[in-house]
């Protein structure tokens, strides 16, 4: 019973905070992208346009909800809801500070990776049930991409697990607070594993240069081609939440989470998450897109072997360095 209470006590605020951060992130991205492109970005809604995401949501809620006549109705309606739910569910085990964590699971890493991979299912549901060729191709690409990139993601997430000797996200942070952040020491395999994990998270969150499932220059809008209004909005939001959580998980696993040079706490976690979040958008707005087969080549020929080597290096480091 106390577990349930604890979950409610921390879960609701955490979800609220994650959603708020996501909305702010949306605004931040639009401003950031605008500066890259020598534009101003949103300026009208609120000071410096900070309420623009709110206005967008209100706009999307007002739109007509269309379901194509030939769509598989149940799957079509269910897909965006599940997509949003799975994206938020990942936040449950992320330790934002020593105390702010909804559920401190012993197998937190496993949970994060598993729920991350689950997002794939509503994406495929949406693509399949739309009964649209562009959506179908988009969904096929999404499945192929996510399945492939799960492999280097899981393998590179294994590196901090081996180094810290625990699958609990809180324990991993505590180990880093006592020793070093894994991205700094051991530099090999820590730093490359961080980069790999981050790249694979980008691919999982369908971000440029890995956003081929919704490559709008080829596939119009990919899986979301037939979606309108808030149903589209949920897919869109899920993608942003996914990005925020991926940044949070990466900073927990490799950058020491709430640990910092002074006054460790929640603020360090937020700062690191936002920095990673910003760098995702930096990449997004300056790179072109890979082709799907090139993406697969990159994954299976380079990232998977590299991450396997990193896991071995981590094991070797623990064995030789006489870790835990």
């Amino acid at each position, binding site marked *: 019973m106390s577990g349930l209470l604890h979950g409610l006590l921390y879960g609701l605020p955490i979800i609220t905070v994650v959603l708020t951060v996501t909305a702010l992130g949306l605004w931040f991205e639009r401003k950031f992208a605008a500066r890259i492109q020598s534009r101003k970005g949103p300026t009208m809604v609120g000071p410096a346009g900070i309420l623009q995401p709110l206005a967008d949501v209100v706009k999307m809620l007002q739109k007509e909800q269309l379901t194509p006549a030939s769509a598989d109705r149940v799957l079509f309606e269910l897909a965006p809801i599940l997509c949003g739910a799975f994206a938020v569910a990942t936040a449950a085990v992320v330790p934002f500070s020593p105390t702010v964590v909804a559920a401190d699971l012993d197998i937190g890493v496993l949970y994060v990776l598993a729920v991350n991979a689950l997002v794939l299912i509503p994406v495929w549901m949406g693509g399949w049930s739309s009964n649209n*060729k562009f959506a179908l191709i988009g969904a096929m690409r999404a499945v192929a991409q996510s399945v492939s990139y799960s492999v280097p993601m899981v393998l590179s997430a294994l590196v901090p697990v081996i180094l810290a000797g625990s699958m609990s996200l809180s324990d991993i942070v505590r180990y880093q607070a006592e020793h070093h952040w894994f991205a700094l020491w051991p530099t090999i395999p820590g730093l490359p594993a961080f980069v790999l994990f981050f790249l694979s998270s980008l691919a999982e969150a369908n971000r440029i240069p890995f956003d081929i499932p919704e490559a*709008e220059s080829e596939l119009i809008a990919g899986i979301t081609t037939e979606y309108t209004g808030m149903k589209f909005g949920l897919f869109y939001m899920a993608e942003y939440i996914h990005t925020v959580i991926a940044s949070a998980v990466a900073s927990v696993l490799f950058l020491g989470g709430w640990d910092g040079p002074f006054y460790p706490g929640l603020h360090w976690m937020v700062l690191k998450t936002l920095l990673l979040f910003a760098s995702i958008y930096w990449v997004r707005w300056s790179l072109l897109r890979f082709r*799907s087969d090139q993406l697969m080549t990159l994954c299976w020929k380079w990232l998977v072997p590299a991450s396997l080597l990193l896991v071995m290096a981590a094991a070797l480091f623990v064995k030789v360095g006489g870790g835990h």
Partner: protein
Amino acid sequence: MSVVKAKRQNPHFRLDLYEPEADLMVLNFGPQHPSTHGVFRMQLHLDGEKIVKAVPDLGYLHRGVEKLCERLTYVQITPIVDKNDYVSPMHNEQAINMAFEKLLGIEVPRRARYLRTIFAELQRMASHLLWLGTFALDLGGAIGGGASVFLHCFRERELILDLFEEVTGARFHYNTHTIGGNRHDITPGWAQSVKSALAVIESRIPEYESITLSNGIFFERTKGIGVLDGELALELGITGPILRASGVDHDLRRDAPYHAYDEIEVKVASAEGGDCWARSVVRLAELRESLRIVRALVDAVPEGPICGYKPIKLVGQVKIPSGQVYSAMESSRGELGTYVIAGGGEGNVSPYRLKIRPPSFHALSALPYLLPGHMVADAVVILGSLDPIMGEVDR
């Protein structure tokens, strides 16, 4: 290079030779699609994501310009053809007026020829900048790095449009050329504005190259994609940067000089390979070359009249009783030809028949040859590298 007479296998029938492992999916690509550069439709027959057969379909932007010209007087035609290739209207105006001048046997004054050359080259730069931007959109998407390239290119294109606005009062549809010369003379400080705009653009070309040609992803996406060999290009009547990228050194500016091109040396950019990469290299080289030509000419504009024909006061003033002529110039996309048969309308004030030969139309005819064997993602890149403007394709 000689034109090969051997008939090629018509790509439309590759489907008969192909034994699919599974059922083919027919993907209707366009006309409402973000990257068909207007309203163009391709029927793609897909095996997985691989294109087996491609059937281009056009005509969605047909406005009957050629037929319309038969009802308009020679004076009224210039502003109409502005809308054909709507990203380089200057070339359209010049091409049509060159044909009329050839029919009438009018000599264009030297000052007007210089101005026309400068306008043509500035327009070529604007057009190539727009191509680079939209090509990056095709590669990188509207919500991603492509959009950044696109907006940067548009920023510099604005500078050129501002220059045109200063002279003609219009940003797109200038109507500044007339039979025998130009309608508007340049303003006193214009040469200086041109030079400062060119300085800005020149300083930014390396930026474009760093995010396109020097970018690994750009290379991966364009190298070896959509290879068009020079012989096929000649057979299909393809001209301009696409032909030059296929290793055929052909440019009307140098080979059949018009305007003031006989007074300035044009270094024709060409590349081997004939793929999307080569086409990108050629267009960026042309951007630099146009910049050089404008810079050389803008200070050397001679004094004198800007029109060699009597001032036009009435729409039916220009009368051509008979004769026919073909005249061609190098637009941003290749040979823009005009065939006019005179002697139409009441009192010979309209052409009997006017035919425009748009370079993009011929470029699109390469699609059935280029697309099979590539992925859907490459179809967009190949189409983008051909730089079609549907306004002039469908007319």
